[in-house]
């Protein structure tokens, strides 16, 4: 995690994770790796985001999303997971909520996967290894769409 280089300068800029009314965006992190959920969690909370929940496979992701709905603003979704993969989970979540904002975060960067995810409704696709700046940029961008 590259945190040393890109901490925001101390100024009056509002943290990216806060909505205009001051409340934090709530994010559901989906990944089967404890390390990755910790990493994404740290990046997000450092910018004021709130971690609404964590799921470690596709099925759990769908269940958690339905539970949290409508108090969940964004989902970060890994692809390679046991039981149900991230692309299938994405499809099901979009079925449940056509306005769901899902950002794929995967170590795989295959073109066909990227295309499929975006076609299914994902707002963005981030390839690991994770870069704090890149993650924040893409998530903020996705929230605005």
């Amino acid at each position, binding site marked *: *995690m*590259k*945190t040393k280089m890109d901490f925001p300068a101390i100024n009056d800029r509002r943290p990216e994770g806060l909505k205009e009314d001051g409340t934090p965006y709530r994010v559901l992190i989906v990944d*089967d*790796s*404890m*390390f*990755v959920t*910790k990493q994404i969690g740290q990046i997000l909370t450092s910018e004021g985001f709130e971690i609404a929940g964590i799921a470690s496979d596709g099925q759990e992701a769908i269940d958690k999303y339905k539970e949290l709905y409508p108090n969940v603003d964004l989902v970060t979704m890994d692809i*390679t*997971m*046991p039981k149900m993969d991230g692309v299938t989970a994405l499809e099901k979540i979009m079925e449940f909520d056509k306005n769901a904002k899902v950002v794929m975060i*995967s*170590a*795989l*960067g*295959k*073109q*066909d996967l990227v295309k499929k995810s975006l076609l299914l409704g994902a707002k963005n696709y981030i390839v*690991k*290894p994770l870069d704090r700046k890149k993650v924040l940029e893409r998530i903020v961008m996705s929230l605005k769409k």
Partner: protein
Amino acid sequence: MRVEYINPFVESAYSVLKEVLNCQVSRGELYLKSTCTPVLGVAALVGLAGDVEGRILFDMSKDTAIKVASVMNGEELKELDDLGKATITELANMITAQAVTKLHDLGFKFDLTPPAIFTGDNMEVTTAEVEALIVPMIIPYGKVEINVAIRERI
């Protein structure tokens, strides 16, 4: 192992290790080993499927694993606990996935399975009927042997 598969794995290992550990990474000479694979202490295994079958094993000593996990987490780990194991597993996952992505671009359709991690002394991992390509990667924290065993579906 098919020659076209070699470079993607070597390049991915180098690239991911360099990016994630931000340290000096060098590669030892590649060589072939026959099936019985003794393990250095910690082994992260990622399965491969698709046009081929096989697996990649990331082999390192426990000491190296702890150091690597510590660097990746930005905090010093005293032992290889669940977080440490998850970290090493994720490292294996990233290297394999990047290689699979490159291979996909070259026209080879591979898929990877979720990784697993094994720790212990005197472990042996045997993949029936395949020889393994060893790519030794040298980093300041020790050696990581990337052990690739792939067989074409005849």
